[in-house]
């Protein structure tokens, strides 16, 4: 197997463009997914069963169907319905955020419910409202516990963004496949793509490790 570095060099500018887009898509997906996930997670633990139901349904649907299918439905169905034409970047951010939200919602729910009941009772008896207690006492503690599973989810999201190649979203994998199509070679494009993803996910885990150390209390 002669590994051709020259074709990787020829495609380097495209991989760079793709990497920037992948980073952008992932960050947007993480950002919106986390916010949405928090809201859905809080919605799911509402005491009123009827109010909580739509949130559970959301999680069931988005966690129970393949992201691949969601991407196709959103790109060819949902986005044209809203803006009248396809837009792969919009569809990409939307599908990654909606999908990720279902997972982060569960992480938030579990994190919040893992905090001892006494914490809420103590804050309420200090005169805090339910929302204040959530914001100043429960969530900060819960958040620390959520970092490892959230980190997991973020790393999965970065890798999942490669599925957007199917809708011609010009991220890393799209260029990898374009390169494969141009040279009819398998190793170079896919190894290059894999290496870039590895760098991205590893940086992500370093960042999360740092965050965890910063928030460590002991």
């Amino acid at each position, binding site marked *: 197997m002669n590994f051709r570095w020259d074709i990787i060099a020829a495609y380097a500018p495209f991989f760079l463009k793709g990497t920037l887009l992948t980073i952008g898509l992932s960050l947007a997906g993480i950002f919106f997914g986390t916010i949405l996930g928090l809201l859905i997670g809080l919605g799911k633990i509402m005491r009123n069963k009827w109010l909580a139901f739509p949130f559970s349904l959301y999680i069931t649907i988005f966690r129970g169907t393949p992201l691949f299918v969601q991407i196709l439905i959103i790109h060819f169905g949902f986005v044209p319905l809203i803006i009248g034409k*396809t837009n792969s970047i919009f569809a990409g951010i939307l599908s990654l955020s909606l999908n990720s939200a279902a997972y982060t919602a569960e992480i938030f729910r579990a994190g919040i419910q893992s905090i001892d009941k006494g914490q809420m009772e103590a804050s309420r008896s200090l005169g805090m409202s339910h929302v204040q207690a959530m914001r100043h006492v429960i969530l900060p503690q819960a958040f620390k516990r959520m970092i490892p599973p959230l980190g997991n989810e973020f790393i999965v999201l970065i890798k999942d963004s490669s599925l957007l190649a199917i809708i011609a979203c010009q991220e890393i994998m799209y260029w990898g496949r374009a390169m494969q199509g141009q040279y009819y070679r398998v190793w170079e494009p896919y190894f290059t793509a894999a290496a870039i993803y590895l760098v991205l996910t590893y940086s992500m885990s370093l960042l999360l490790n740092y965050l965890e150390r910063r928030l460590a209390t002991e």
Partner: protein
Amino acid sequence: MKKSFSLVMALLIMSVIMLAGCGTSSNNGSSSTKSEKTLHVVTDASYAPFENMDNGKMVGFDVDIMNAVAKDAGYKVKMDNVGWDAAFAALEGNNADAGISAITINNDRKQTYDFSLPYFQSKNEILIKDGSTISSGKDLKGKTIAVQNATTGQTIAEGILGKNSSKIKKFDTTPLAIQEMLNNGADAVVADSGVVQAYVKNNPDQKLKIVDDPSFPSEYYGIMFPKGSKLVPAFNKAIKKIISDGTYAKIYKANFGKDPDLAQIKAEQAKAE
């Protein structure tokens, strides 16, 4: 404990490397011996009317041709729908015996693969929505074009817009590229005439128009083999035979509803030889 752990790790890493090295060449490998007469043929069955899935069965012009030619050459055929890129990869890695998937014979591909004689003449055509102002390849300048990745349609689009232009959207399949245009994500699709015509015929309600640009070159499909495959001469003989005994014309008419231009294909075959 520690020692055994590192030993296990080393073994694991070794086996991963071994696995990665040999890929999936274990049981679907190429049949170099004449004793097992079933050929493993790869295709991308999302390319009606050449090859597509019909209620779980693979049908189409290429499938019929492959069966007829292989029968004549004395082989059984097991068609395997692996997808376009994977079909190329399988042949490159010698994990399949042949590929038939409306594959255009060109010099780039000849460097890595062997081809049979041409068995079909094709042209790229432009598919647009009714009401579009595009009337030739020239009008595509500055427009967004959806194509199937690694097809000659992409080559033509790149000739107009430039290599790897961001205005070219490359999709896995031609139907996906067409879907993109229907949803206003692209102004036109450039793809093989056979597929484009079949799509328009099957979707009369979608108000599509086909533009034929005379300057787009004709191309010819061939059956693709791994480099140095011993099957090529037998298949070439069989292709010529089905053309001369009328089988080819029958298959052509059944799939396209018209008679083939046999003189044209024979002339091209003579050139290739």
